[in-house]
């Protein structure tokens, strides 16, 4: 139950996004930069919200951007984006969003291993704001890895 390795290119700190689409796109671009997806996957992540609403905002301040496995996914991957300014997704309870996690999986079961590790990390209610305020990529990795061990 481990998270995919978080390469430097998969972590974007204090990104500037004008709205939720831009925030999701930055998380998607980070997956593309890590070599895990093509830009079609980013489009699909945005479409999920257009089609179904802001349900990807699954906890206060955190959006889990993802789409279905498919041809646009080359490897299991994760990206972490913190926002310089929080953005609203239009969620009834959890706006504004400060952290966007991008998630890509080649197959549904691969997704599940990654989401189990994510749940380990973020079931600690302090973890979201700790990631949002993380000064360095190392600090982000430390928060996720520390939670993984507990």
């Amino acid at each position: 139950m481990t998270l995919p390795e978080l390469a430097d290119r998969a972590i974007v700190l204090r990104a500037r996004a004008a709205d939720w689409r831009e925030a999701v796109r930055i998380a998607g671009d980070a997956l593309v930069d890590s070599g895990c997806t093509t830009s079609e996957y980013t489009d699909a992540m945005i479409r999920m919200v257009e089609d179904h609403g802001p349900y990807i905002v699954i906890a206060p301040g955190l959006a889990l951007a993802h789409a279905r496995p498919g041809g646009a996914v080359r490897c299991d991957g994760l990206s972490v984006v913190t926002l310089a300014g929080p953005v609203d997704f239009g969620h009834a309870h959890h706006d504004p969003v400060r952290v966007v996690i991008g998630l890509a999986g080649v197959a549904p079961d691969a997704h599940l291993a990654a989401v189990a590790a994510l749940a380990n990390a973020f079931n600690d209610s302090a973890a979201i704001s700790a990631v949002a305020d993380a000064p360095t990529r190392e600090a982000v990795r430390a928060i996720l890895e520390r939670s993984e061990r507990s």
Partner: protein
Amino acid sequence: MKIVTICGAGIGSSGILKVNAERVLQRLGLEATVVAADIGSVARVAADAQVILTSAEFVEAIGPTRADVVVIENYFDTDELSRKLEVAIG
């Protein structure tokens, strides 16, 4: 006992709900199969389910069902999940 977690893609957020529901069930000492599925397959996957866990966004799309539809607000709050699962199952 079968519990189905529903999101747009059937992975990702419904996966988080599945993982945390299994943890809560274990804590409560309850036995159940938890399946993550996408909204498009809810009629088929949840036909024999007792409980559907999802977000408010999907309640209307789930439509008529014999299962108890439970809306979860914070997917990482296992106390909320535990409380609502106990009510639904209890």
